[in-house]
Protein backbone atom coordinates (compact mmCIF):
# COMPACT_ATOMS: atom_id res chain seq x y z
CA UNK A 1 0.00 0.00 0.00
CA UNK A 2 2.83 2.35 0.91
CA UNK A 3 4.65 1.53 -2.29
CA UNK A 4 1.50 2.15 -4.30
CA UNK A 5 0.94 5.42 -2.49
CA UNK A 6 4.45 6.78 -2.97
CA UNK A 7 5.20 5.44 -6.45
CA UNK A 8 3.42 8.44 -7.99
CA UNK A 9 5.38 11.08 -6.07
CA UNK A 10 8.59 9.14 -6.79
CA UNK A 11 7.84 9.32 -10.52
CA UNK A 12 7.02 13.02 -10.22
CA UNK A 13 10.27 13.75 -8.38
CA UNK A 14 12.29 11.68 -10.86
CA UNK A 15 10.65 13.39 -13.84
CA UNK A 16 11.05 16.88 -12.45
CA UNK A 17 14.65 16.07 -11.49
CA UNK A 18 15.49 14.91 -15.00
CA UNK A 19 13.84 17.99 -16.45
CA UNK A 20 15.78 20.32 -14.14
CA UNK A 21 19.04 18.62 -15.10
CA UNK A 22 18.20 19.08 -18.78
CA UNK A 23 17.21 22.73 -18.28
CA UNK A 24 20.40 23.50 -16.38
CA UNK A 25 22.61 22.01 -19.06
CA UNK A 26 24.21 24.37 -21.52
CA UNK A 27 21.81 24.51 -24.51
CA UNK A 28 24.75 23.96 -26.83
CA UNK A 29 25.54 20.65 -25.12
CA UNK A 30 21.99 19.38 -24.68
CA UNK A 31 21.68 17.60 -27.97
CA UNK A 32 18.66 17.63 -30.24
CA UNK A 33 16.36 15.33 -28.27
CA UNK A 34 17.09 16.85 -24.85
CA UNK A 35 16.64 20.33 -26.28
CA UNK A 36 13.33 19.30 -27.78
CA UNK A 37 12.16 17.83 -24.45
CA UNK A 38 12.83 21.18 -22.76
CA UNK A 39 11.30 23.31 -25.50
CA UNK A 40 8.38 21.13 -26.56
CA UNK A 41 7.75 17.72 -24.97
CA UNK A 42 7.82 19.08 -21.42
CA UNK A 43 6.54 22.57 -22.22
CA UNK A 44 3.64 23.83 -20.07
CA UNK A 45 1.33 23.77 -23.08
CA UNK A 46 2.02 20.06 -23.54
CA UNK A 47 1.91 19.05 -19.87
CA UNK A 48 -0.98 21.12 -18.51
CA UNK A 49 -3.79 19.20 -20.28
CA UNK A 50 -2.08 15.92 -19.42
CA UNK A 51 -1.94 16.91 -15.75
CA UNK A 52 -5.66 17.68 -15.90
CA UNK A 53 -6.40 14.38 -17.59
CA UNK A 54 -4.28 12.52 -15.03
CA UNK A 55 -6.10 14.23 -12.16
CA UNK A 56 -9.42 13.24 -13.71
CA UNK A 57 -8.27 9.64 -14.07
CA UNK A 58 -7.45 9.55 -10.37
CA UNK A 59 -11.04 10.46 -9.49
CA UNK A 60 -12.63 7.54 -11.34
CA UNK A 61 -12.47 3.80 -10.56
CA UNK A 62 -9.10 2.21 -11.33
CA UNK A 63 -10.54 0.12 -14.17
CA UNK A 64 -11.72 3.27 -15.94
CA UNK A 65 -8.37 4.95 -15.35
CA UNK A 66 -6.55 2.00 -16.93
CA UNK A 67 -9.01 2.03 -19.81
CA UNK A 68 -8.36 5.76 -20.19
CA UNK A 69 -4.61 5.14 -20.44
CA UNK A 70 -5.19 2.43 -23.05
CA UNK A 71 -7.48 4.69 -25.06
CA UNK A 72 -4.92 7.51 -24.78
CA UNK A 73 -2.36 5.16 -26.35
CA UNK A 74 -4.85 4.29 -29.08
CA UNK A 75 -5.36 8.01 -29.65
CA UNK A 76 -1.62 8.49 -30.06
CA UNK A 77 -1.56 5.69 -32.60
CA UNK A 78 -4.58 7.12 -34.40
CA UNK A 79 -3.07 10.61 -34.49
CA UNK A 80 0.17 9.23 -35.84
CA UNK A 81 -1.45 7.15 -38.56
CA UNK A 82 -4.01 9.76 -39.58
CA UNK A 83 -1.73 12.76 -39.27
CA UNK A 84 -2.45 14.08 -42.75
CA UNK A 85 -6.22 13.88 -42.20
CA UNK A 86 -6.00 15.60 -38.83
CA UNK A 87 -3.73 18.32 -40.17
CA UNK A 88 -6.05 18.88 -43.12
CA UNK A 89 -9.05 19.11 -40.77
CA UNK A 90 -7.43 21.35 -38.18
CA UNK A 91 -5.61 23.29 -40.88
CA UNK A 92 -8.95 24.56 -42.15
CA UNK A 93 -9.12 26.76 -39.04
CA UNK A 94 -7.60 30.22 -39.51
CA UNK A 95 -4.11 30.56 -38.06
CA UNK A 96 -3.82 26.84 -37.41
CA UNK A 97 -0.31 26.49 -38.82
CA UNK A 98 1.00 29.23 -36.53
CA UNK A 99 -0.72 27.87 -33.40
CA UNK A 100 0.37 24.25 -33.44
CA UNK A 101 -2.91 23.38 -35.17
CA UNK A 102 -4.76 24.24 -31.94
CA UNK A 103 -3.55 21.07 -30.27
CA UNK A 104 -3.17 22.80 -26.91
CA UNK A 105 -6.66 24.35 -26.64
CA UNK A 106 -8.31 21.16 -27.90
CA UNK A 107 -6.63 18.92 -25.33
CA UNK A 108 -7.01 21.55 -22.63
CA UNK A 109 -10.77 21.87 -23.12
CA UNK A 110 -11.16 18.07 -23.38
CA UNK A 111 -9.32 17.49 -20.09
CA UNK A 112 -11.10 20.41 -18.42
CA UNK A 113 -14.55 19.13 -19.34
CA UNK A 114 -13.80 15.73 -17.78
CA UNK A 115 -12.77 17.42 -14.54
CA UNK A 116 -15.86 19.62 -14.57
CA UNK A 117 -18.25 16.76 -15.22
CA UNK A 118 -20.33 15.24 -12.39
CA UNK A 119 -18.78 12.13 -10.87
CA UNK A 120 -21.30 9.78 -12.47
CA UNK A 121 -20.47 11.05 -15.96
CA UNK A 122 -16.74 11.66 -15.50
CA UNK A 123 -15.72 8.05 -15.85
CA UNK A 124 -17.55 7.77 -19.16
CA UNK A 125 -16.15 11.04 -20.51
CA UNK A 126 -12.59 10.11 -19.60
CA UNK A 127 -11.97 7.68 -22.50
CA UNK A 128 -13.29 10.18 -25.03
CA UNK A 129 -11.06 12.95 -23.67
CA UNK A 130 -8.12 10.53 -23.53
CA UNK A 131 -8.65 9.61 -27.18
CA UNK A 132 -8.70 13.28 -28.19
CA UNK A 133 -5.71 14.16 -26.00
CA UNK A 134 -3.72 11.21 -27.39
CA UNK A 135 -4.48 12.10 -30.98
CA UNK A 136 -3.56 15.77 -30.63
CA UNK A 137 -0.44 14.84 -28.66
CA UNK A 138 0.67 12.75 -31.62
CA UNK A 139 -0.01 15.70 -33.94
CA UNK A 140 1.88 18.14 -31.70
CA UNK A 141 4.79 15.72 -31.37
CA UNK A 142 5.03 15.08 -35.08
CA UNK A 143 4.83 18.70 -36.20
CA UNK A 144 7.39 19.95 -33.69
CA UNK A 145 9.90 17.30 -34.70
CA UNK A 146 13.19 19.20 -35.05
CA UNK A 147 14.81 16.37 -37.02
CA UNK A 148 14.20 14.67 -40.32
CA UNK A 149 11.68 12.16 -38.97
CA UNK A 150 13.92 10.67 -36.29
CA UNK A 151 11.62 8.09 -34.60
CA UNK A 152 13.36 8.76 -31.29
CA UNK A 153 11.56 12.11 -31.13
CA UNK A 154 8.11 10.55 -31.34
CA UNK A 155 8.99 7.83 -28.82
CA UNK A 156 10.39 10.45 -26.44
CA UNK A 157 7.25 12.58 -26.75
CA UNK A 158 5.02 9.62 -25.94
CA UNK A 159 7.20 8.54 -23.01
CA UNK A 160 7.08 12.05 -21.51
CA UNK A 161 3.29 12.14 -21.90
CA UNK A 162 2.69 8.68 -20.42
CA UNK A 163 5.14 9.44 -17.60
CA UNK A 164 3.16 12.59 -16.78
CA UNK A 165 -0.18 10.78 -16.86
CA UNK A 166 1.02 7.91 -14.67
CA UNK A 167 3.02 10.03 -12.23
CA UNK A 168 0.32 12.63 -11.63
CA UNK A 169 -2.48 10.06 -11.72
CA UNK A 170 -0.85 7.80 -9.13
CA UNK A 171 0.02 10.78 -6.93
CA UNK A 172 -3.50 12.16 -6.86
CA UNK A 173 -4.98 8.68 -6.40
CA UNK A 174 -2.56 7.85 -3.59
CA UNK A 175 -3.53 10.91 -1.57
CA UNK A 176 -7.14 11.25 -2.69
CA UNK A 177 -9.61 12.85 -0.29
CA UNK A 178 -13.37 13.36 -0.66
CA UNK A 179 -12.91 17.10 -1.10
CA UNK A 180 -10.62 16.59 -4.12
CA UNK A 181 -13.65 17.01 -6.35
CA UNK A 182 -13.65 20.75 -5.51
CA UNK A 183 -10.09 21.58 -6.67
CA UNK A 184 -10.66 19.19 -9.58
CA UNK A 185 -13.55 21.36 -10.77
CA UNK A 186 -11.49 24.52 -10.25
CA UNK A 187 -8.66 23.01 -12.30
CA UNK A 188 -11.18 21.90 -14.91
CA UNK A 189 -12.70 25.36 -15.21
CA UNK A 190 -9.23 26.87 -15.59
CA UNK A 191 -8.30 24.40 -18.31
CA UNK A 192 -11.53 25.07 -20.21
CA UNK A 193 -11.14 28.82 -19.79
CA UNK A 194 -7.49 28.83 -20.83
CA UNK A 195 -8.23 26.62 -23.82
CA UNK A 196 -11.16 28.76 -24.93
CA UNK A 197 -9.22 32.00 -24.39
CA UNK A 198 -6.16 30.75 -26.25
CA UNK A 199 -8.12 29.16 -29.06
CA UNK A 200 -10.54 32.07 -29.30
CA UNK A 201 -7.78 34.66 -29.39
CA UNK A 202 -6.09 32.78 -32.21
CA UNK A 203 -9.33 32.31 -34.12
CA UNK A 204 -10.57 35.87 -33.78
CA UNK A 205 -10.51 37.69 -37.07
CA UNK A 206 -7.91 40.39 -37.05
CA UNK A 207 -8.64 43.81 -38.54
CA UNK A 208 -7.07 44.29 -41.96
CA UNK A 209 -3.61 45.78 -41.85
CA UNK A 210 -3.06 49.17 -43.42
CA UNK A 211 -1.49 49.29 -46.84
CA UNK A 212 2.18 48.46 -46.44
CA UNK A 213 5.04 49.22 -48.80
CA UNK A 214 6.14 46.28 -50.95
CA UNK A 215 8.08 43.75 -48.92
CA UNK A 216 11.77 43.47 -49.53
CA UNK A 217 12.65 40.08 -50.98
CA UNK A 218 13.89 37.77 -48.27
CA UNK A 219 17.40 36.48 -48.55
CA UNK A 220 17.36 33.14 -50.29
CA UNK A 221 19.27 30.19 -48.95
CA UNK A 222 22.79 30.03 -50.35
CA UNK A 223 22.03 27.07 -52.52
CA UNK A 224 25.05 25.68 -54.38
CA UNK A 225 25.14 26.79 -58.01
CA UNK A 226 23.72 24.31 -60.51
CA UNK A 227 27.14 23.13 -61.61
CA UNK A 228 27.92 22.18 -58.00
CA UNK A 229 24.47 20.82 -57.16
CA UNK A 230 25.43 17.20 -57.47
CA UNK A 231 29.11 17.13 -56.62
CA UNK A 232 29.45 13.45 -56.00
CA UNK A 233 27.18 12.47 -58.82
CA UNK A 234 29.46 13.93 -61.39
CA UNK A 235 33.10 13.57 -60.38
CA UNK A 236 35.53 14.33 -61.79
CA UNK A 237 34.60 17.49 -63.65
CA UNK A 238 36.59 16.48 -66.71
CA UNK A 239 34.01 13.77 -67.31
CA UNK A 240 30.86 15.14 -65.69
CA UNK A 241 28.59 12.51 -67.17
CA UNK A 242 30.38 9.52 -65.68
CA UNK A 243 28.31 9.23 -62.58
CA UNK A 244 29.53 5.96 -61.16
CA UNK A 245 28.29 2.42 -61.23
CA UNK A 246 25.32 3.07 -58.93
CA UNK A 247 24.70 6.63 -59.87
CA UNK A 248 23.45 8.45 -62.88
CA UNK A 249 24.79 7.26 -66.20
CA UNK A 250 25.05 9.01 -69.47
CA UNK A 251 24.52 6.97 -72.62
Amino acid sequence: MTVARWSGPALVVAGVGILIILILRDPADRGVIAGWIVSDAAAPARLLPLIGLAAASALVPASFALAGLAVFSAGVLLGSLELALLLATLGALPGAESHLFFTFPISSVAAGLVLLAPSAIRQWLLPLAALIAGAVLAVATKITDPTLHDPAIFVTGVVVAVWTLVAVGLTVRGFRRPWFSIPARILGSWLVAIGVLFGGAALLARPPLPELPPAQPTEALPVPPPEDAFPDLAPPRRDPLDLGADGLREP
Partner: protein
Amino acid sequence: MWSRKTDERCSWRQLPWKWLVALVFLIPIGRVEAHPNILMNYRVLLNFQNHKIDAIGESWTFDQTFSQTLLDTFDTNHDGKFDTEESSKMGDTVLANLADADYFTYLWSGPERVEDLVPSNFTATLARGVVTFAFTMVLPSPISPAHVRLEIKDPDFVVLPEPTEQQPVLVRGDTGDCVPKVSDAPDAFDFSGAFPQDQITVRCN
Protein backbone atom coordinates in the same frame (compact mmCIF):
# COMPACT_ATOMS: atom_id res chain seq x y z
CA MET B 1 -15.29 46.19 10.36
CA TRP B 2 -18.11 45.15 8.10
CA SER B 3 -16.49 47.04 5.28
CA ARG B 4 -13.18 45.23 5.76
CA LYS B 5 -14.91 41.86 5.69
CA THR B 6 -16.65 42.80 2.46
CA ASP B 7 -13.31 43.77 0.94
CA GLU B 8 -11.80 40.43 1.91
CA ARG B 9 -14.72 38.56 0.38
CA CYS B 10 -14.36 40.52 -2.82
CA SER B 11 -10.68 39.77 -2.87
CA TRP B 12 -11.24 36.03 -2.48
CA ARG B 13 -13.94 35.99 -5.09
CA GLN B 14 -11.63 37.65 -7.56
CA LEU B 15 -8.63 35.49 -6.76
CA PRO B 16 -9.31 32.60 -9.20
CA TRP B 17 -9.71 35.04 -12.05
CA LYS B 18 -6.48 36.79 -11.11
CA TRP B 19 -4.77 33.43 -11.20
CA LEU B 20 -6.38 32.67 -14.52
CA VAL B 21 -5.15 35.92 -16.00
CA ALA B 22 -1.71 35.29 -14.55
CA LEU B 23 -1.64 31.82 -16.06
CA VAL B 24 -2.68 33.06 -19.46
CA PHE B 25 -0.11 35.81 -19.58
CA LEU B 26 2.78 34.46 -17.53
CA ILE B 27 3.04 30.84 -18.54
CA PRO B 28 4.33 30.58 -22.09
CA ILE B 29 1.53 28.25 -23.13
CA GLY B 30 0.37 30.62 -25.76
CA ARG B 31 3.67 30.54 -27.57
CA VAL B 32 2.98 31.03 -31.21
CA GLU B 33 4.81 28.46 -33.24
CA ALA B 34 5.04 28.78 -36.97
CA HIS B 35 5.30 25.78 -39.18
CA PRO B 36 7.01 24.21 -40.93
CA ASN B 37 10.08 23.78 -38.75
CA ILE B 38 12.62 23.23 -41.49
CA LEU B 39 13.00 25.11 -44.76
CA MET B 40 14.56 23.26 -47.65
CA ASN B 41 15.44 24.33 -51.16
CA TYR B 42 15.70 21.47 -53.60
CA ARG B 43 17.05 20.99 -57.09
CA VAL B 44 16.32 17.93 -59.19
CA LEU B 45 18.37 16.31 -61.91
CA LEU B 46 16.51 14.19 -64.46
CA ASN B 47 18.74 11.73 -66.23
CA PHE B 48 17.62 10.59 -69.65
CA GLN B 49 18.63 7.45 -71.48
CA ASN B 50 17.13 6.54 -74.83
CA HIS B 51 14.60 9.36 -74.43
CA LYS B 52 13.39 7.94 -71.12
CA ILE B 53 14.11 8.96 -67.57
CA ASP B 54 16.13 6.25 -65.88
CA ALA B 55 17.33 8.05 -62.74
CA ILE B 56 16.89 11.22 -60.76
CA GLY B 57 19.29 13.15 -58.61
CA GLU B 58 18.23 15.41 -55.79
CA SER B 59 20.01 18.21 -53.99
CA TRP B 60 18.51 19.51 -50.74
CA THR B 61 19.78 22.67 -49.07
CA PHE B 62 18.55 23.35 -45.53
CA ASP B 63 18.09 26.58 -43.60
CA GLN B 64 20.80 27.81 -41.25
CA THR B 65 19.07 26.66 -38.06
CA PHE B 66 18.57 23.09 -39.17
CA SER B 67 22.01 23.07 -40.78
CA GLN B 68 23.45 23.94 -37.37
CA THR B 69 21.46 21.07 -35.85
CA LEU B 70 22.95 18.70 -38.41
CA LEU B 71 26.42 20.07 -37.72
CA ASP B 72 25.98 19.67 -33.96
CA THR B 73 24.75 16.11 -34.42
CA PHE B 74 27.03 14.69 -37.08
CA ASP B 75 30.22 16.77 -37.06
CA THR B 76 31.69 14.51 -34.40
CA ASN B 77 35.25 15.87 -34.63
CA HIS B 78 33.96 19.46 -34.49
CA ASP B 79 36.08 20.69 -37.39
CA GLY B 80 33.18 22.56 -38.97
CA LYS B 81 32.79 20.30 -41.99
CA PHE B 82 31.67 16.82 -42.88
CA ASP B 83 34.37 14.34 -43.79
CA THR B 84 33.60 11.16 -45.67
CA GLU B 85 32.91 9.12 -42.57
CA GLU B 86 30.64 11.75 -41.02
CA SER B 87 28.79 12.24 -44.30
CA SER B 88 28.32 8.50 -44.65
CA LYS B 89 27.01 8.14 -41.11
CA MET B 90 24.65 11.07 -41.65
CA GLY B 91 23.37 9.49 -44.85
CA ASP B 92 22.75 6.15 -43.16
CA THR B 93 20.88 7.79 -40.27
CA VAL B 94 18.87 10.39 -42.16
CA LEU B 95 17.90 8.18 -45.06
CA ALA B 96 16.86 5.35 -42.73
CA ASN B 97 14.56 7.80 -40.91
CA LEU B 98 13.15 9.13 -44.17
CA ALA B 99 12.29 5.72 -45.64
CA ASP B 100 8.78 5.88 -44.15
CA ALA B 101 8.34 9.31 -45.73
CA ASP B 102 9.42 7.95 -49.13
CA TYR B 103 12.48 10.22 -48.97
CA PHE B 104 10.08 13.11 -49.68
CA THR B 105 10.10 11.93 -53.30
CA TYR B 106 6.76 11.15 -54.95
CA LEU B 107 7.06 10.16 -58.58
CA TRP B 108 4.28 9.20 -60.94
CA SER B 109 4.36 7.82 -64.45
CA GLY B 110 0.90 8.66 -65.68
CA PRO B 111 -1.55 7.46 -63.01
CA GLU B 112 0.90 4.90 -61.61
CA ARG B 113 3.06 5.82 -58.64
CA VAL B 114 6.70 4.79 -59.10
CA GLU B 115 7.64 3.11 -55.85
CA ASP B 116 10.69 1.36 -54.44
CA LEU B 117 12.92 4.36 -55.04
CA VAL B 118 16.08 3.90 -53.02
CA PRO B 119 18.63 6.66 -52.62
CA SER B 120 22.33 6.05 -53.17
CA ASN B 121 25.52 8.07 -53.50
CA PHE B 122 24.53 10.26 -50.56
CA THR B 123 26.81 13.19 -49.83
CA ALA B 124 26.52 16.08 -47.40
CA THR B 125 28.43 19.30 -47.80
CA LEU B 126 28.62 22.44 -45.71
CA ALA B 127 29.13 25.81 -47.38
CA ARG B 128 28.31 29.33 -46.21
CA GLY B 129 26.64 27.98 -43.10
CA VAL B 130 24.13 25.72 -44.78
CA VAL B 131 24.12 21.97 -45.34
CA THR B 132 23.32 20.47 -48.70
CA PHE B 133 22.48 16.82 -49.29
CA ALA B 134 22.84 15.23 -52.69
CA PHE B 135 21.84 11.73 -53.68
CA THR B 136 20.72 9.61 -56.60
CA MET B 137 17.70 7.43 -57.20
CA VAL B 138 17.86 4.90 -60.01
CA LEU B 139 14.35 4.07 -61.21
CA PRO B 140 13.27 0.43 -61.20
CA SER B 141 12.65 0.80 -64.94
CA PRO B 142 12.96 3.81 -67.26
CA ILE B 143 9.77 5.84 -67.64
CA SER B 144 8.44 8.02 -70.41
CA PRO B 145 9.09 11.70 -69.70
CA ALA B 146 5.83 12.80 -71.26
CA HIS B 147 3.77 11.38 -68.40
CA VAL B 148 6.12 11.97 -65.51
CA ARG B 149 5.13 13.97 -62.45
CA LEU B 150 7.42 14.50 -59.49
CA GLU B 151 6.61 16.11 -56.15
CA ILE B 152 9.10 16.72 -53.37
CA LYS B 153 7.07 17.00 -50.17
CA ASP B 154 7.03 16.06 -46.51
CA PRO B 155 3.85 14.16 -45.61
CA ASP B 156 4.19 15.36 -42.00
CA PHE B 157 4.52 19.04 -42.98
CA VAL B 158 7.62 19.47 -40.81
CA VAL B 159 9.84 20.32 -43.76
CA LEU B 160 8.81 22.89 -46.34
CA PRO B 161 10.57 21.95 -49.59
CA GLU B 162 10.71 24.66 -52.22
CA PRO B 163 12.40 24.48 -55.61
CA THR B 164 15.47 26.63 -56.02
CA GLU B 165 14.94 29.98 -57.66
CA GLN B 166 17.55 29.33 -60.32
CA GLN B 167 17.38 26.19 -62.41
CA PRO B 168 15.30 24.02 -60.10
CA VAL B 169 15.42 21.18 -62.61
CA LEU B 170 18.45 20.06 -64.56
CA VAL B 171 18.36 17.51 -67.33
CA ARG B 172 21.12 15.31 -68.63
CA GLY B 173 21.52 12.79 -71.36
CA ASP B 174 19.38 11.98 -74.33
CA THR B 175 16.64 14.50 -73.60
CA GLY B 176 15.44 14.96 -77.16
CA ASP B 177 13.13 17.95 -77.24
CA CYS B 178 11.84 17.49 -73.71
CA VAL B 179 11.83 20.45 -71.34
CA PRO B 180 11.10 20.28 -67.61
CA LYS B 181 8.53 22.54 -66.02
CA VAL B 182 7.79 23.51 -62.43
CA SER B 183 4.20 24.43 -61.59
CA ASP B 184 1.70 24.38 -58.73
CA ALA B 185 0.67 20.87 -57.80
CA PRO B 186 -3.03 20.30 -58.49
CA ASP B 187 -5.32 19.42 -55.60
CA ALA B 188 -2.52 19.86 -53.08
CA PHE B 189 -3.66 20.77 -49.59
CA ASP B 190 -1.52 23.82 -48.91
CA PHE B 191 -3.16 25.28 -45.76
CA SER B 192 -4.42 28.35 -47.58
CA GLY B 193 -1.06 28.96 -49.19
CA ALA B 194 1.06 28.38 -46.08
CA PHE B 195 2.50 25.19 -47.57
CA PRO B 196 2.82 25.79 -51.30
CA GLN B 197 3.33 22.54 -53.16
CA ASP B 198 5.03 22.37 -56.52
CA GLN B 199 5.26 19.63 -59.07
CA ILE B 200 7.77 18.89 -61.79
CA THR B 201 6.56 17.73 -65.14
CA VAL B 202 8.22 17.35 -68.52
CA ARG B 203 6.89 18.71 -71.75
CA CYS B 204 8.01 16.92 -74.93
CA ASN B 205 7.20 18.20 -78.39
